[in-house]
């Protein structure tokens, strides 16, 4: 690793002050599972690395008036073992369980996963399907936006240089919403998603209501599949509808062709993934 200076702020304010002071030559370190690997491959010396992994304001999982609040610094292991999440958003637990391996789940944070903004991140789809919102804090104060608007491009979020991701909130309305997550990888352990998908839906009188479908690793950022959702809205639950939605989702994605899988195969996985998550979410709803 090239030399850099290291700073462990005591508060988010102190962290932000450093971000402002240092300008572009700074890197934020949370769990480090991506950031430290990046640091090892950074060709030039960085000015400063700000370690936010111990900031208390980024920790904690709680029920608030807004919904289920998850601090950006919460690790994937925290998510896997948290009873509140297990109760109100179990699909998020399923997703967290598939991330990396035990060691990386112990280090890696939910915020880090979102901010690194890799297309294949496993935290994104479920949160987007549950219409999570994120709160960002910077010099000019806090702002809250839908997670879907947080991602803007390959490894690129709306975060300004002086901003930190503070927390993620699953809105109250969507707590307990039947949802399901699936991931396809090249092996069973430590798999990086070829495609991942999450669906969340209510079932009302045997009909789909507010179905939300989100896909990862199929576009530069995690996406929602509004056309597929529209196929379902208000329709009676049937295998045909699910198949139709799954096919529609394929048209909304733009997966890449790379050494890990072809575009065609990924498209197939999208269809299967959407079908399986919808079916699983319906199962959850009916139990």
């Amino acid at each position: 690793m090239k030399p850099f200076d290291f700073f462990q702020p005591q508060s988010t304010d102190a962290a932000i002050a450093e971000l402002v002071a240092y300008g572009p030559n700074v890197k934020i370190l949370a769990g480090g599972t991506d950031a430290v690997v990046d640091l090892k491959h950074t060709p030039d010396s960085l000015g400063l690395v700000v370690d936010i992994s111990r900031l208390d304001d980024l920790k904690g999982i709680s029920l608030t008036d807004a919904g289920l609040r998850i601090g950006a610094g919460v690790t994937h292991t925290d998510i896997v073992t948290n009873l509140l999440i297990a109760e109100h958003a179990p699909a998020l637990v399923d997703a967290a369980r598939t991330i990396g391996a035990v060691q990386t789940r112990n280090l890696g944070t939910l915020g880090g996963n979102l901010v690194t903004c890799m297309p294949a991140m496993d935290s994104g789809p479920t949160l987007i399907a549950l219409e999570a919102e994120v709160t960002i804090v910077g010099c000019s104060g806090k702002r809250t936006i839908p997670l879907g608007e947080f991602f803007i491009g390959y490894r690129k979020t709306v975060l300004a240089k002086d901003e930190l991701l503070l927390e993620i909130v699953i809105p109250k309305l969507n707590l307990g919403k039947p949802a399901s997550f699936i991931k396809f990888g090249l092996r069973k352990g430590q798999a990086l998603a070829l495609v991942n998908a999450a669906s969340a839906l209510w079932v009302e009188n045997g009909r789909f209501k507010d179905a939300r479908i989100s896909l990862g690793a199929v576009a530069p950022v995690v996406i929602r599949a509004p056309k597929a959702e529209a196929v379902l809205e208000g329709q009676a639950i049937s295998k045909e509808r699910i198949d139709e939605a799954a096919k529609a989702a394929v048209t909304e994605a733009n997966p890449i062709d790379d050494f890990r899988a072809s575009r065609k195969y990924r498209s197939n996985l999208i269809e299967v993934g959407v079908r399986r998550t919808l079916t699983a979410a319906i199962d959850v709803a009916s139990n």
Partner: protein
Amino acid sequence: MVDITITVNGEKRITSVPPETTLLKLLREKLNLTGAKLGCDAGDCGACTVLVDGVAVNACLMLAGQANQREVLTIEGLADSQKFHPLQKAFEELGSLQCGFCGPGIILSAKYLIDAHPNPSVEDIRKALSGNLCRCTGYTKIIEGVAAACRKIAGATDKAA
């Protein structure tokens, strides 16, 4: 330089290292504890697994500064002159390891598992070890070793009770 106060295997040390030093480098090069291995330097192989405040992490993915004021357990601290850890015994008796390079990481990952889940299923063990690559053993005798250690621990507790 960053100043680090760290407790390793129960012994407190204060040291100062360049900020870009990983916990793995601190352990291996500064503290002479070479049990944790460098296999990939990217968090893929798990050969550098150590416990930080009781939690299994990849020492190659943690900066030494992040381990400041924390307790680290490396493979060298698992046994003392009186007693081996049951995992170490079981691994020796069953021939769980071959070249042994992945061993320290595997044993600590297994310890992390059984500290929280003293009676894991084979599937639990597989999941707990999926971050530790091994090229020699096919994991079979490693899994058997973890299961045997758990039985031994359970037996010892039963006797005590």
